C-alpha cells in the first residue's frame, strides 16, 4: 500500500458517494436542471407510505366461456333453421354445453357437416339416446377455450386501463399476474370505493326486446316461454320512497350491445335538471339501431346493464340518427362513472376482488414521519455509542455509517426501488448491523495491538483477519434477504430490498472506506498509538 493507493481509493469512494448524491437530489428538491429530470426520479414510495390502493382482481374466465357459448348456440340455432335441419330442444346446460336432439342419422350427418364447415370451434363432447332420439352434447374445443380465456384477460387489462385513465390517477400500475389475475396499484387515490366500482363493473350494455305476447305473471310463477328470460329492474316507489324490484319478461336474444357505442356523455335534462347518459352509436351500430327501431315501432325495448333492466321505453318511431339515452335516477357522479365505463367498453367477463389493501394518506404521512424519526434517533444512539466505546476509531466508524446511509438511499433512488415502511425498518436495522463489520475489525485490531504489534501491522492484521468473517456473516443474512425478496409481496419486498442494499453498502463502507481513513492517518506518520 502506498500513498498513491490512498489517493486512488479515496477518489473511487468520492465518485461513488457523489453518484449516490446525484441520484438522491430529486428527492430533496424539485428545482433541478434537465440533466437530473431526464435521468432520475424521486425515491419511489410504497403505497403504505404514499397512501393508495392495491387491488388484485380475478377475471372469471369461466363466464367468458359461457357467454361465448351463448352467442355460438344462438348462431347455431339460426343456421340449423336456415338449412332446415330438424332438431328439438336446443338448450344450454351447465353453462358451457349446448345440447340438442336430432331425429335421424340423416340429420346427424348434415349436422356434422354444418359443424365442420361453419362452427369449427365447437366439437361433440358426447351423444346419448333419449326417448329414441339422439341427444348431442356440444362443447367448445380446448384450443378455443384457451384462446377465449387469454383474450378475456387481455381485454380486461385493456378495458381497466382505459377506465383508470379516465379516472385521472397519476402513475397507476395495472399488470397481469399469473393466468387470470390482474394487479392494480393506484397511489394517492382519494375515493377507493368509487375506484373499485369503476374498475370492477362489468358494464355489459345490452338492448333486448320485451316479450309482450306471453304472460309475465305465468313466467314469474315458473313457466318461462322458450327463448325468453326474466330480468329485474328497480324502481323507486313514489309513495314510500323504497326501492322495489320489478320483473320483466324479455327475449333472450341480444339485438345490440355496448360494443356498438362510439361515445357516451353525461347530459343534463332540460325538464327536471336531472343528469342522464346520452349514447352515440358508431356507423354500423347506428344502422343496426335504425333497423331495430324500424322493425319494432310501438314495442318496448329493454336497456339492460349487467343483467339488470335499467329501463324499458316504448319505441315511438324509427331512430336513424344513432343516438339514444339512458335515463333514470342518477346522481351526477353515477352518471359520470357510467359514461366512463360505457366509453371504455365492457369487461369481457366479471371480475372478483381477491385482495385489497388501502392506506389513507394521513396514515401514510404518519408512517413516513415516524420512520424518519426512528432512523434519526437510531443513528444518533449508535453514533454516540461508537464514539464512547472506540474513541476516535468510533468516529471513523461513524463516518462510514453516515456514508452508508447516503449510499443506501442513493442506491434506492438509482434502482427505482420502492421504499416501504418495513423498508425503512430495514434501513434502521442496517444501521445497527452495519457497525458490526466495524466492530469485528476494531476488536481484531485491539487484539493485534495487545499482542504487541505496531499500529500499522495491527491495522493490516485486523482488517485481513476480519475480512473472511465479515463476508461469511453478511452472506448468510443476504441469503435470507434474497429469499424474502423472492417470496414476499409489497411492503415485505421493500424490506428485503433495503436490507440487501444495506448489507452490500455496509460491507463496502466498513472494509473499503474506513481502511482509507486509517491508512491516511497512520501511513505517513509514525503513530505510536491508535485511538481505539
Amino acid at each position, binding site marked *: 500500500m502506498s500513498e498513491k493507493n490512498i489517493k486512488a481509493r479515496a477518489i473511487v469512494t468520492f465518485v461513488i458517494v457523489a453518484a449516490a448524491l446525484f441520484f438522491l437530489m430529486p428527492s430533496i428538491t424539485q428545482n433541478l436542471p434537465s440533466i437530473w429530470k431526464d435521468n432520475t426520479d424521486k425515491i419511489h414510495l410504497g403505497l403504505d407510505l404514499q397512501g393508495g390502493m392495491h387491488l388484485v382482481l380475478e377475471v372469471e374466465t369461466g363466464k367468458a366461456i359461457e357467454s361465448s357459448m351463448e352467442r355460438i348456440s344462438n348462431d347455431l340455432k339460426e343456421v340449423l333453421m336456415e338449412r332446415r335441419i330438424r332438431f328439438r330442444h336446443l338448450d344450454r346446460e351447465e353453462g358451457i354445453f349446448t345440447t340438442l336432439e336430432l331425429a335421424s342419422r340423416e340429420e346427424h350427418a348434415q349436422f356434422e357437416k354444418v359443424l365442420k364447415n361453419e362452427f369449427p370451434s365447437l366439437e361433440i363432447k358426447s351423444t346419448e339416446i333419449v326417448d329414441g332420439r339422439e341427444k348431442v352434447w356440444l362443447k367448445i374445443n380446448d384450443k378455443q377455450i384457451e384462446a377465449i380465456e387469454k383474450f378475456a384477460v387481455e381485454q380486461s387489462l385493456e378495458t381497466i386501463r382505459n377506465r383508470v385513465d379516465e379516472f385521472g390517477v397519476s402513475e397507476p400500475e395495472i399488470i397481469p399476474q399469473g393466468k387470470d389475475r390482474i394487479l392494480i396499484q393506484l397511489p394517492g387515490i382519494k375515493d377507493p370505493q368509487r375506484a373499485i366500482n369503476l374498475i370492477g363493473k362489468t358494464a355489459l350494455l345490452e338492448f333486448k326486446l320485451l316479450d309482450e305476447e306471453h304472460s309475465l305473471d305465468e313466467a314469474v310463477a315458473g313457466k318461462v316461454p322458450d327463448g325468453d328470460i326474466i330480468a329485474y329492474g328497480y324502481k323507486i316507489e313514489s309513495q314510500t320512497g323504497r326501492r322495489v324490484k320489478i320483473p320483466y319478461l324479455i327475449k333472450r336474444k341480444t339485438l345490440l350491445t355496448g360494443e356498438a357505442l362510439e361515445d357516451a356523455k353525461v347530459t343534463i335534462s332540460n325538464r327536471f335538471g336531472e343528469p342522464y347518459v346520452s349514447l352515440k352509436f358508431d356507423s354500423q351500430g347506428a344502422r343496426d339501431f335504425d333497423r331495430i327501431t324500424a322493425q319494432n315501432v310501438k314495442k318496448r325495448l329493454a336497456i339492460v346493464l349487467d343483467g339488470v333492466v335499467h329501463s324499458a321505453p316504448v319505441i315511438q318511431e324509427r331512430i336513424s340518427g344513432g343516438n339514444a339515452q339512458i335515463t333514470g335516477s342518477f346522481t351526477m357522479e353515477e352518471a359520470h362513472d357510467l359514461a366512463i365505463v360505457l366509453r371504455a367498453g365492457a369487461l369481457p367477463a366479471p371480475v372478483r376482488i*381477491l385482495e385489497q389493501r*388501502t392506506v389513507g394518506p394521513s396514515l401514510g404521512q404518519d*408512517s413516513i414521519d415516524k420512520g424518519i424519526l426512528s432512523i434519526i*434517533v437510531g443513528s444518533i444512539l449508535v453514533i454516540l*455509542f461508537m464514539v464512547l466505546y*472506540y474513541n476516535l476509531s468510533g468516529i471513523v466508524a461513524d463516518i462510514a455509517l453516515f456514508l452508508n446511509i447516503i449510499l443506501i438511499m442513493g442506491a434506492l433512488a438509482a434502482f427505482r426501488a420502492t421504499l416501504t*415502511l418495513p423498508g425503512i425498518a430495514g434501513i*434502521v436495522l442496517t444501521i445497527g448491523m452495519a457497525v458490526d463489520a466495524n466492530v469485528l475489525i476494531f476488536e481484531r485490531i485491539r487484539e493485534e495491538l495487545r499482542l504487541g504489534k505496531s499500529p500499522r501491522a495491527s491495522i493490516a492484521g485486523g482488517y485481513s483477519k476480519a475480512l473472511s468473517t465479515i463476508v461469511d456473516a453478511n452472506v448468510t443474512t443476504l*441469503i435470507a434477504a434474497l429469499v424474502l425478496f423472492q417470496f414476499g409481496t409489497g411492503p415485505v419486498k421493500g*424490506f428485503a430490498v433495503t436490507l440487501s442494499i444495506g448489507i452490500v453498502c455496509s460491507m463496502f463502507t466498513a472494509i473499503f472506506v474506513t481502511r482509507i481513513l486509517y491508512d491516511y492517518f497512520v501511513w505517513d506518520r509514525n503513530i505510536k498509538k491508535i485511538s481505539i
Partner: protein
Amino acid sequence: MEIIRPGINIDLVGKMKIAFVASLVAIILSVLSLLLHGGPNLGIDFAGGTQVQIKFSQETTAEGIRDSLQTIGLGNSIIQRFGYHANNEFLIKTEKSSSALEGLSNKMAEALEVSYGKENFEIRRVEVVGPKVGKDLRQKGLLAMLYAVIGILIYVTWRFELRYAVGAIAALIHDVVITVGVFSLLGKEFTLPIIAALLTIIGYSLNDTIVVYDRIRENIKGARKQPLPEVVNSSINQVLSRTVLTSVTTLLVVLALFFLGGAVIHDFAFALLVGILVGTYSSVFVASPTVLVWETISPSKEKRKQ
C-alpha cells in the same frame, strides 16, 4: 471503554447443562402455548378476512363500536385498540371477506356514520384478503422459511463442515420456535411482516453463530493437541466482546423502532427485539454446544487422523 475485559475466560461450556435446560423449558413453553391456542394467531394475511383501522376524533370504547357494527351483522368482529390510548385508534377484524365490489369496509363505514357521524372518524387503512390469496401467502411464507434454511445449510456446510451447519440450524430453529412462542403467549398476530422479521432473525442469528464458528475454526488450526471443549470455550470468550457489542448496537436501533416507529411497525420491532436477544444467546449456548455434542458422537476428520 471496554465492557468485556480482554483475557476473559468464563467457563461457558461448563454452563452448557444449565443452558440446555433453560432452552428446553423455553421451547416446551412455546410449543405448549401454540398447542393451547390451536396454532399461531394468524393475521388476515394468512387466514383471510377483512381488517379496518379507524381513528376516532373522540374517546371511544370497543363496546360502542361493537354495538354500531351489530346492526350490519358484524357484531362478532374482533375489536382492538391500536397504538397508544390517546390515539383513539381501533382495529376491527373479521374473518369474512367479500369478493363483491361493495366491500365490507364500506358497510362498516355506513354503520359507523349512523352511530358516530361522518366527521368523527377516519378510516386510515383497509385490508381485505380473500381465502385464495390467504392460502397463497401461507404457502409462500412457509416456502420462504424452508428455502432460507436450505440455502443456509448449504452455504455453512460449504464454508465449514456439516456439523457446524447442523449446529447453526439447531440455533436457528431454537430462535424461531421461541420467538413464535413468545408471540403466541402474548397473543400477538402473525402477519407477513412478522415472517420478514423471522427471516431477519434467522440471518442475524447466523451472523453471530458464524463469527463464533470462524474463531473456533481458526483456533483449532493452531491448537491440534487441545481438546475441543477448551478450544470452543476460549473461542467464544475471545469473540464475546464483539458479540455483546453488536447485540447492543442492533438493540439500540430496534428499541428506537419499537418506541418511535408507530403502531403499524410495532409488532415487527417486537419480533426483532425478541429474536436478537434469543439469537445472541443461541450462538453461544446452542450452536457451539451442538458442535461439541456432534463431535463426541462422530469425531471430525481431523481428530480421526490423530
